[in-house]
């Protein structure tokens, strides 16, 4: 590993260590200017979030002013409480959590079980069934929503948690992702457990699942975020505020409240918290998950 040229280092050399190394040789202005400029770009990039937060803290009649002002005559923290109570925003959050948690559970359980069968068990038609799974990955959600709506009507599920959760909990993606990961786990690990008399379920739970934890974690977080952010399907299948998830609630809020921008910004900020917190807590896993698989759609 050559680090003496200082052009481009392998990623494995920590940035801080290499910067330290460089500083002792001679002071480079280039990297410092580059870092400052990058920070300026980042601040511009984050400005919409900042403006949303500032607006959420303004009194109602001071949202618009010429020239624009960052801070109003008072810091109106009560806007957050008002937004929470105005529409049943608390209810939207609960619905969103219930749907996202249930959806994630169903996705993880069903795809873990199926991925194990595809990766480890021999049965007739295995390859053919798997190819059918794979071929549906290409099909956009839009092809499914129209007949799915009719199906939900037939089942009597319109405007229910079941309709929000189940239709999208069995897509091939999770099974595909976990199967690929399971295939990379050495069989010796399981054979040792089998020799000790463990059944398949125990092997799956005590050997495979712990080994595959990073993959399962990434799949869980992206599934949760996808459910939390989902909009088109809730817009189709939900028709009361009581069943609305967060994005749908925000949209209803928009329709009803017209120009209550300070409350809408407060509500929007609240709606961003769960995904933002997850991203910050699990960033390393997620960043690598995306880099490896392009997970999550966009």
């Amino acid at each position, binding site marked *: 590993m050559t680090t003496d040229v200082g052009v*481009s280092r392998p990623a494995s050399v920590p940035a801080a260590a290499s910067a330290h190394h460089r500083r002792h040789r001679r002071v480079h202005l280039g990297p410092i200017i580059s870092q400052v400029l990058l920070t300026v770009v980042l601040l511009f990039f984050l400005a919409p979030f900042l403006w949303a937060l500032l607006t959420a803290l303004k009194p109602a009649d001071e949202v618009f002013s010429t020239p624009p002002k960052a801070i109003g005559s008072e810091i109106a923290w009560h806007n957050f409480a008002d937004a929470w109570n105005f529409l049943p925003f608390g209810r939207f959050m609960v619905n969103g959590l219930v749907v996202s948690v249930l959806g994630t559970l169903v996705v993880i359980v*069903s795809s873990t079980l199926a991925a194990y069968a595809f990766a480890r068990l021999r049965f007739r038609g295995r390859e053919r069934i798997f190819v059918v799974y794979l071929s*549906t990955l290409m099909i956009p959600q839009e092809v499914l929503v*129209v007949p799915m709506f009719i199906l939900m009507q037939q089942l009597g599920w319109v405007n229910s948690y079941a309709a929000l959760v189940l239709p999208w909990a069995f897509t*091939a993606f999770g099974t595909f992702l976990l199967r690929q990961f399971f295939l990379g786990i050495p069989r010796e690990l399981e054979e040792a457990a089998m020799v000790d008399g463990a059944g398949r379920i125990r092997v799956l739970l005590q050997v495979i699942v712990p080994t595959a934890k990073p993959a399962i974690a990434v799949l869980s977080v992206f599934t949760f975020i996808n459910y939390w952010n989902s909009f088109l399907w809730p817009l189709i299948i939900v028709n009361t505020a009581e069943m609305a998830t967060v994005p749908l609630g925000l949209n209803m809020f928009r329709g009803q409240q017209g120009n209550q921008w300070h409350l809408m910004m407060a509500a929007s900020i609240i709606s961003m918290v769960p995904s933002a917190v997850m991203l910050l807590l699990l960033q390393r896993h997620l960043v690598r998950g995306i880099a490896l698989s392009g997970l999550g759609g966009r």
Partner: protein
Amino acid sequence: MAIPIPGAAARLAPAPPPAERGAAARHEARAASGFLALSMAGFLAFTILPIIGSLVMAFFDWPVFGDRSFTGLSNFSTLLRSDPVFHRVLGNTVLFVVLYLPLNIVVSMALAVWISPKVRARGVYRVLFFLPAVTPMVANAIVWQLLLTPRGVVDGLWKSVTGSDAPNFLGSTTWAMGCVVVMSVWQGFGYNMLVFSAALDAVPSTLVEAATVDGAGPIRRFFTIVLPLLSPSMFFAVTMTLITSFQVFIQPYILTGGGPGVSTETLVMYLYRIGFEQFQMGLAAATAWVLFIIIMAVTALQFIGQKRWVHYDN
């Protein structure tokens, strides 16, 4: 994520005698059906059945209430031949893709290069540039609506800088689509940035150093050494971004409602309006299949064209 070498799994246990093997195989198949039951039931009910349903519905006049009737290709001919709005919508979607795709790729590549290992706390920059990709798109779009609305902050800044009235960004045919594209790039480029960033980290430094010794400047090094090495990631990013950008819905739905007129209405907005506001389910299903065929076609073109520019050999 440490992925063990798959080759290690190739060693198989010695084969048992035939009779025992038959019993074991039957046992294994039974176990497999147990493991697959949940996933297969859901997959059949919520993926296969709707796919077939959608295909059937596309050939029917299918109102939500009332009689449905088989109409052959009439839904498709309505869309492709006689509905001028559909043509506008198709054009709008293509325009969105043509503007969005290159902007997304250039911005994500530029930032991936910029956030090199030399940058301190690069993880922080990566995560923050990725942030809008995970926050709810509806919330993001509502925030941008506030920025761009008349008397909003962009409007105000425009007035202070130029002294003249700003255009109505979301309400003018000249500006609306541009705003939808810019907001979409802001929201979505983080994915490709992370993909490119990982690929850049994997570029062998010896190659770049050799080129430097040979006298190649940074721009030359990027275009002749780094970019060809990144072509598989580029192919992946372009393909995925193409597929998802044809499905654009939330950004124009929230920002402009498809307006002014139908100047920012996209294919999926059209599908939603036809299917769930006008309740012509057959026509909506046909729209979905047109979308799918377009996506398939551009993906196929990508795969055919990749031989010319994607280098998989190391």
